[in-house]
């Protein structure tokens, strides 16, 4: 999963800037569900802001130097002016990502805690055929490792398949696939989820009402995700979809397999994005070359994209122009995973903070946000949800994992600003999350319990 930020291409060199800065969103890695291919979180290439956008973060001493790297000469004049705004935007972008990730996690944790359906073991996915009910520890470990290998290989195959499709421009196929998977996600899983929630709270609902609700929800969701819709609604749908996916994973993945899979997926993510031959990287680069936006339904974008036409001298201080991208244009982006919902970056938003306009070159609004692949959302939520479901230390562990993931996200965005290219968003956060989960569960919990029983405070 990659995070990336859209750089404001406002700066001068339209062509170079635009193409080089365009962030390719990497399609999410396919995720699987029983029988359906859900693509997994797409990595979103990190587009960093041209400026050391995220220089807000603490260790940004390098930022000063960084801002010069790879920036066109003309920019230097603008740069200084925009430093401060960029800085503010940098922090803002992190928060823009914090909020949805937090929301998704809250939804997942709340559901796990209240609806018992998702913690019952009712079977496993066909992608994890080995059961973990074995008597011995070694056997269990072996089974979970085998499960992981199978799952990861399925993911890799799907990713490569998607990249090939993208490369050979089989847009229709990809599009259809994505639509199918998001359809299933929106309708089927919502139905199951709603059913379980109603069961838990003992609320009766008749079928016609249910049908109406789900139909509306699903239809609006399809429109929002694949076509146009208000940004907030899109984001909300993306979050809900990610949460649903995460819940499915939590339910159907056996214990140890889930942890090993999380670890393996972050390693895979690292490799897929950074290795030159990695599928995701190729996807990003191909999308960049073709100047196409990434798949709509696989990426979460935190802001709308404003793009300005080439020579618009009259772009005033506002300098924002909305560009509508249609789905057709986005054809290249395929959803690899139904769970990824790409926020249509074609949303336009009205209020835009004024940027200091340096000259009459077209200025692009810098309101591009950071983009995060939906798979990232899903796996973060899986981590926190599993922590909530299985940890005996309950809320402490969940809280610890939550903070760890947020800090990992911060660091990733920081690196994004440093390196200015697509970056995997999973490894750092998941590593922190795993470390904190295991350590909190085993070390901190007895300590805190003993303290609490004596009512001591540290």
């Amino acid at each position: 999963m990659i995070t990336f930020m859209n750089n404001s291409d406002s700066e001068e060199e339209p062509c170079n800037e635009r193409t080089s800065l365009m962030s390719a969103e990497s399609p999410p890695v396919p995720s699987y569900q029983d029988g359906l291919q859900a693509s997994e979180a797409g990595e979103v290439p990190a587009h960093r802001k041209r400026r050391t956008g995220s220089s807000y973060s603490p260790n940004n001493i390098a930022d000063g130097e960084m801002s010069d790297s790879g920036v066109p000469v003309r920019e230097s004049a603008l740069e200084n002016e925009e430093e401060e705004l960029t800085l503010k935007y940098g922090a803002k972008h992190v928060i823009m990502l914090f909020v949805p990730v937090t929301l998704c996690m809250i939804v997942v944790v709340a559901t796990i805690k209240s609806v018992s359906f998702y913690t019952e073991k009712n079977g496993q996915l066909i992608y994890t055929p080995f059961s973990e009910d074995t008597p011995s520890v070694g056997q269990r470990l072996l089974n979970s490792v085998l499960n992981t290998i199978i799952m990861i290989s399925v993911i890799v195959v799907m990713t490569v398949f998607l990249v090939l499709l993208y490369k050979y421009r089989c847009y229709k196929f990809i599009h259809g696939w994505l639509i199918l998977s998001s359809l299933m996600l929106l309708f089927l899983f919502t139905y199951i989820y709603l059913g379980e929630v109603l069961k838990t709270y003992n609320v009766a609902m008749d079928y016609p009402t249910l049908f109406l609700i789900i139909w509306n929800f699903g239809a609006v969701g399809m429109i929002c995700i694949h076509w146009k819709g208000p940004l907030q609604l899109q984001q909300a749908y993306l979050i809900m979809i990610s949460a649903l996916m995460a819940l499915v994973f939590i339910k159907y993945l056996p214990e140890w397999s889930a942890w090993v899979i999380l670890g393996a997926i972050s390693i895979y993510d690292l490799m897929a994005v950074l290795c030159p031959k990695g599928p995701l990287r190729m996807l990003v680069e191909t999308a960049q070359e073709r100047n196409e936006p990434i798949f709509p339904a696989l990426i979460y974008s935190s802001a709308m994209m404003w793009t300005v036409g080439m020579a618009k001298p009259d772009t005033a201080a506002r300098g924002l122009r909305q560009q509508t991208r249609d789905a057709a244009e986005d054809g290249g982006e395929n959803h690899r995973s139904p769970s990824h919902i790409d926020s249509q970056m074609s949303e336009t938003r009205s209020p835009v903070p004024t940027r200091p306009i340096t000259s009459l070159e077209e200025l692009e609004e810098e309101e591009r946000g950071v983009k995060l692949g939906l798979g990232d959302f899903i796996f973060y939520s899986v981590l926190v949800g599993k922590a909530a479901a299985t940890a005996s230390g309950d809320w402490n562990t969940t809280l610890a994992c939550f903070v760890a993931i947020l800090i990992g996200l911060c660091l990733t965005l920081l690196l994004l600003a440093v390196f200015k290219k697509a970056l995997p968003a999973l490894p750092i956060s998941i590593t922190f999350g795993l470390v904190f989960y295991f350590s909190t569960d085993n070390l901190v919990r007895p300590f805190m319990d003993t303290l609490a029983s004596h009512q001591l405070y540290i």
Partner: protein
Amino acid sequence: PALGLFLFTIARDPLRIIILIAGAFFWLVSLLLSSLIWFIAVKASDPRDEQLQKGLLIFGVMFSVLLQEAFRFLYYKLLRKAIEGLVALSEDGCSPISIQQMAYVAGVGFGLMSGAFSMINLLADALGPGTVGIHGDSQLYFLTSAFMTMVLIFLHTFWGILFFHGCEHRCWWEITAVVVMHLAVSGSTFCNPLYVGSLVPSYLLMAAAATWAYLLSGGSAQNLRRFLLCKS
């Protein structure tokens, strides 16, 4: 109350939120390390010896306090570097956030995390059925826990301000005062369930720390009066 503080003062500015989360993270790490030490000590010792266990617990608490303060210091160092970075990046030569604000936010971060860890399991259990103090423990368990947690969160906030101020101006005695206060507060909780012994001194210390921090931040009796009388 701490949540109110958060909402009103921190939630607006994204930079502060980041500093807050980072502060919470640092506290968490310090907790992790201290519980690691305690865990090792417990495993290495005899589990049946009550006195020894109690002693180890006390040792664990003290050690944890020291570690927390050490991490606060580390966090201060980190924030110093961050300020330099921010200043270098900002165009008019001054950082968008001052060290005092950072101190405040860091303190709140520490406090929130420690409060959350202390209270949240309690709260979760409080939702369920049960009777407080059924085994002869105090019946005021929940109430006192709530008050203690609140006082601790506030204390962390004030300690953050004092600590950073001490580091800025190199007043070592301020720093030692903070550490000593922290130790004292934790130590006073050993008197639980004799709540008089722990709650009252804690509140007194909090009042003292509050006035001290307020004075350090540039407030004065006049400001206070003007504020209360709505700038008359």
